[in-house]
């Protein structure tokens, strides 16, 4: 039996926050994250008629679109330059309490570390902590479920080292 396709608005309301946080962890800057998130849902909206619930979960489908949009974003502008700009211009939370409340980010520093990991490690952490199963993470990254688990655990260790280095 083919699973029913939920109304797109339900999908939108359920996943907007998760897609945004995934993108935000990739690109660092809130404005870029909004742009990309908007693009993700515009693309999904247009493609929803072709979405086959029997082939994939809505989450995996949306995160695939999000991942592609994020990669496009980096290809277009150059990730290094964007990170530099983000680090230089992003105010510290203490300096901008209003901005902090607006963005509703409590772990800015941690996400900044995630954003600086190698691409696949960054993806593995972001996708996993956005609620995807290892099977779905593997599907998106083109590897097996076990390989996704290994990649994820290596990524978390790398992140821990990065955080520790900064604390020293």
């Amino acid at each position, binding site marked *: 039996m083919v699973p029913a396709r939920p*109304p797109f608005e339900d999908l*939108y309301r359920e996943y907007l926050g998760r897609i945004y*946080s995934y993108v935000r962890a990739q690109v660092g800057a809130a404005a870029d994250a909004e742009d990309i998130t908007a693009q993700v849902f515009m693309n999904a909206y247009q493609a929803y008629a072709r979405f086959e619930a029997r082939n994939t979960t809505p989450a995996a489908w949306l995160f695939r679109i999000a991942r592609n949009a994020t990669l496009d974003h980096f290809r277009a502008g150059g990730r290094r330059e964007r990170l530099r700009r983000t680090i230089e211009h992003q105010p510290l939370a203490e300096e901008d309490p209003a901005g902090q409340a607006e963005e509703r980010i409590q*772990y800015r520093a941690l*996400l900044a570390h995630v954003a600086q990991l190698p691409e696949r490690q960054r993806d593995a952490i972001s996708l996993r902590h956005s609620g995807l199963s290892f099977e779905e993470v593997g599907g998106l990254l083109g590897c097996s479920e076990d390989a996704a688990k290994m990649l994820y655990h290596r990524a978390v260790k790398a992140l821990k080292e990065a955080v520790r280095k900064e604390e020293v």
Partner: protein
Amino acid sequence: MSDQDDDLELQALQRELDDAFATTRPRRGFEDELWLHMQARRPVSTRFADAIAGLFQGIREAPRVPAAAVASILVVAIGAGLLLSSGLHGGGGGSTASLSAGDGSKRNGGEYLPTFGQVPAPPQDNSVPSAVYAGPAHLVWSGKLNLSISTAPVFRYQEPTVNASDQFATSLGAALVDRPSGYLGSYRATTYTLKVRGTVQTPPSSPAYFIFANLGMPEIDAAGATSQGLADIFLAGHSLAPQWTYTVAVDSSGDPVKVVYQRQFDVPGYGPANLVDVNGVRYGLEVDISGRRPVLATGLLPVSLDRADYSIISADQAIQQAVAPQMGPVTGVTVPTVQLTQAELVYVLVPAGDHSFYEPAFLFSGTFQVGGATRIKRVLVAAVDPSQRSS
């Protein structure tokens, strides 16, 4: 460090990551703005936020007043950089409601007494949006302001409750979904999502509802109907037609077309006075039409208004306050002289906690040239006599 410690650290980090991803969310309002944008099927530009800024002005809270360096506590000078070529124009013929007081106004045997005690002064906001002119200006009055009244009604309402919000939603056939931060409730109907919000203190913004159409919202089948006609049909079909006096303005400069029902208050001896926001812009109820489909409706949440008459300042006093210097001498820059040529009595929202007020004010306006563009200068002067107003 032992392996056990290492594992504990990793687990702690994973918990932090869970929290980080669970709590990182876009700014408030983004979700609805984007949804509306998708409904309107407009292309996404490279800077989405910029694109929606103009498109969805209606669902944002009232813009801040650019009232830099206002000297008098009674005068709010608005250097609104509004180009005269704006597509907003009067629709005409829409003033169909009777010139009675607003929702549930109470009369005291035909006389209105200042029963609210001292009313609060209209708030000021010294922030200056980058897009508007708020520089120094010499203001000169060269118009004509005839005023034959010495009192005008002040309206007061009690802050709407969650119950009132739920009742409003129920009357539309919408069911409660949740109560997101900043709203009294979020509701779902077959063809739209409804959100209801109370008074916003700063910048002042009236209690309002927002209807966001979903994909199930049908096109309105009315051959030959104008945008206003489509909006009228939509509102009538949802029992949302304004119960107050209004004029209609239609902005057809883009997609969606915006049909605005501008609320008015009846002032005995004067006539209808427009409700304006802190920038002097009229508002009330807006319906956005894309194609033949309503995509957004945002309007004043019905509230019960109490009414009392208050003494107001004279025309001469209002003019004097409007043109009073707003700042000390300015050196090194060319200060434009702006001729204020028009003035009207308007109403402004004055939030005051549990009870808020709609108070009369004088809105002065005039045009001037900046960099070859014609702009409007607006000045709001509180009308209630200072002796009947708290500071």
